């Protein structure tokens, strides 16, 4: 994970559950609105993450000079998704695509919120995270996608070692 995500993780993981709820709600409140240019696509049902109970839409962007901008739309009645996706949008805005590919798959454990969410929600978020990484890799093009898979594989090797 990058420095910004590490900073957020350190803060979240070091506080008791009540405060985690407050911090996550703060992230949920700061969730940015979907830019105007994506609203028609959203209304047409594009970008929908179907695995998610809440209506989550992703519109990952990679600029020509390889900077990631993740745009998303998540309803206000799904504050947990808003908080978690919002954290990633914040931490990886402007990052190179390969960095997104290295977001740890056990992110919720590293954030220290796995106990707060419980096992079923962790599974659900794993799908959201995988979709996000894939969307960014796709937006970045084939070269970057290959690099992404490589770093993901390296990450897994590290975990199993």
């Amino acid at each position, binding site marked *: 994970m990058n420095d910004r995500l590490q900073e957020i993780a350190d803060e979240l993981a070091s506080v008791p559950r009540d405060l985690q709820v407050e911090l996550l*709600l703060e992230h*949920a409140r700061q969730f940015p609105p979907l830019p105007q240019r994506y609203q028609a696509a959203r209304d047409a049902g594009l970008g929908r993450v179907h695995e998610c*109970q809440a209506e989550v839409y992703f519109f990952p962007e990679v600029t020509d000079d390889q900077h990631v901008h993740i745009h998303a739309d998540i309803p206000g*009645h799904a504050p947990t998704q808003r908080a978690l996706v919002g954290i990633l949008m914040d931490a990886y805005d402007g990052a190179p695509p390969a960095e997104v590919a290295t977001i740890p798959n056990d992110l919720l454990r590293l954030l220290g919120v796995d106990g707060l*969410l419980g096992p*079923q929600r962790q*599974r*659900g978020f*794993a799908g959201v995270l995988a*979709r996000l990484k894939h969307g960014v890799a796709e937006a970045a093009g084939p070269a970057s996608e290959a690099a992404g898979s490589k770093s993901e594989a390296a990450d897994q090797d590290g975990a199993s070692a």
Partner: protein
Amino acid sequence: MPDYAHPEVLVSTDWVSKNLADTEHVRVIESNEDVLLYATGHLHNAVHADWQTDLQDPEVRDVISKDQFERLCSRLGIHPDTTLVFYGDQSNWWACYAFWTFKMFGHRDCRVMDGGRAKWEAEGRAMTTEVPSYPSTDYTAGEGHPEIRAMRDDVLAHMKEGGAMVDVRSPAEFIGEISHAPHNPASEAAMRAGHIPGASNVPWSRAAASDGTFKGRDELEAIYLEEQGLEAGDETIAYCRIGERSSHTWFVLTYLLGFDDVRNYDGSWTEWGNLVGVPVEKGLPEDDGTLAA
């Protein structure tokens, strides 16, 4: 709610509004899909019971034990004769799941607020972020109702006998066309797609009106009795993916239509679709032309 078989278990937002101050006799309980939603604001005097962290065992894949249930009730200031009113997000899926759990442990007076959180909010009713605290009790659970839960062996035996089953998932899940989106581990939650042989497919949402309230008895009878041919006297099992949407249908069949013996299979597809050696059926049932609904 006069038309339903057991109208007393369903209360209106008006009823809750008038009774939520009576904390000595009434405990309002919010149960949501989203674990943070309660903290963003909830009904005055309402407590929070989360399906994952309060109602399910953290180690074993199971509902909480009787001891854990008694501790939960004691912590929430509940007595065995307290009237419990459940409500939540997602058209009351988790409220119905919590209701089912409390019934299984034998709590007598459980009710559901019709329309759930969405209706309360749509009506512009008051909400608060203040978390209430009640003197803890020494709750002792009475005789439970394990018969409202189906375990996998019950389902297998029931299937072999040709018993009635309702699969309340979407038609795509029922048919077995689960989209295996690339890079999506969530779709691997079950190793096989399809449904339990003999089950009818009635998506849970067909029991709900657009405002999240339950449909009237006539409309429900038209769907479950006339169209699907289910009978109130038959043993019936409801299931979905993880047991929450099927709690909603279990509630409908048991309390709104007065079925005598409905069991919720909470292991649902995440269990059945991973079991070795159990039959799985794919595709449309032969006689059902209503799946597009």
